[in-house]
């Protein structure tokens, strides 16, 4: 099965404010979007397990007008507090890359 990295044109993460991590998955066409949007790999439960947060706090929002999927979840540590690992949240996408759609 193709991975997310093989299917998407953009897999990025970034803070949406210092308390929230957001992920944008963008696909080259409707077929790629449909495959991803219908995949169990991108269900909230899987994302929650990958990022170590409760499932109820994970939002997965299809955005078909842009052939894109938005994921948002709480950060485990507030951006920039001591012990943080990624102040901008721009390098948190890696666990998603190998997901098989």
């Amino acid at each position: 099965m193709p991975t997310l990295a093989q299917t998407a044109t953009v897999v990025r993460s970034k803070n949406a404010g210092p308390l929230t991590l957001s992920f944008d998955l963008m696909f080259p066409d409707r077929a790629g979007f449909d495959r991803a949007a219908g995949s169990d790999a991108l269900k909230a439960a899987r994302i929650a397990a990958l990022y170590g947060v409760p499932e109820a706090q994970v939002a997965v929002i299809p955005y078909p007008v842009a052939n894109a999927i938005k994921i948002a979840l709480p950060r485990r540590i507030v951006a920039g507090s001591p012990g943080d690992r990624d102040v901008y949240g721009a390098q948190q996408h890696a666990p998603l890359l190998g997901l098989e759609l």
Partner: protein
Amino acid sequence: MSAVAELFARRPDRLRILSASGQLGYGIPADALAEGLRRRPDFIGADMGSVDPGPAYLGSGELATSPLATRRDLSLVLEGARSLGVPLIIGTAGTAGAAPHLETTLAFIRDIARERGLRFRMATIRSDLSRARVKAALAAGQLTALGAELAVSAADIDACSHLVGQMGCEPFERALALEPDVIVAGRACDTAIFAAIPRRLGFDMANVMHMAKIIECTSVCCEPGGRDAMLAELDHEGFVLESMHPGRRATPLSVAAHSLYEQADPTRFTEPDGTLRVEDARYEAVDSRRTRVSGARWEPAAQTTLKVEGASALGQRAVLLAASVDPGFIANIDGTLAEVERITRSMVAGDYQLYPRLYGLDAARLSPPSTGFAPREIFVMVEVVAAEAALAMTTAKTFKQYLLHHGFPGRQCTGGNLAFPFTPSEVLAGTAWRFALYHVMPAPDAPSLFPVSVEEVGS
């Protein structure tokens, strides 16, 4: 007649809006700005701030951008706006928009005006909130963390060095009423910079806010994205977007996709004055470089809400910087770090926090670490935070020496476990800050929270 007075007397039916910068002070691409000025915009806006760079700037009062680059960018937009005689609006002055950031920015502007012989009328909007106002919201149970849990107490509020509220359009409208040429605001919604003038001119708020939401990031909404100036042409049914860089195309897909950027939900955006809904927005190509947008909806808020930001100091930070290539050291690193911390705490008394990061071993991941791989080398960065710099440095130095010589099981590299890139290998990294407040609160008193003043500059 001031630039604002002239624009409101003219009341154009189509409004050309130039977004000069998404974060002024990091270097505005000059060619695209010059092209934007050639299009004769009706006004120019520039965002100057963000919470992205973390709590240190709001906390300390310092700018994230360098004085040299900040002055250069301010000169570009000031001279551009004055050469056309159009209004210039700058939001979130000096990275975080609190009093010291605003004062630094205003001082730069006055200096530039003196050097370049510019004369103009400048309105200033302050955004500092009193501790008493925020504590009243806390006591009334009206502070809600934005996006996740962030517990806050009255003591946490007292500990904040600066507290700012993020203004919407209303304070800008009071500034416009003073008929300035230039408006410089403290902490402001990026959208308000671009929405206040068209709103006052009676353009449809759904289109106005959608336009503002997109162009505040300049050409990020293009393919390929960039930081070049962006032009919006607004009419009463929608707006057309065009990058001022010839190589950046605003396509229906790239513009629609921009709704995702740095947002938790790409379909709705909550602002102090209402909520923008873009589920039904239409994006149509005008040509290969321009897209027309229409069809968003605007739901005015029943009550104004404000985002409140505050940062407090937690202590002084020291960091230890080292690397290792020894396979045994890397394989035993978790046990080694625990043991070295135990030894350090037995040697150095006092209250401090230790946060080791192992680069090459998932140091940058906020998600749970992966397992089952052995990197050829790792970088060890240990963050120490203590009330006093001396204690933080003592801790880092002690940790360093015991980590260097720790006898983990099977150790062969008895000359030392670490490669230091330089000495001192422990450095002081200044004050450690945190966001103590990133909350929203209802604010029926919003107009009184953002005082406006005006001055003649260069006269």
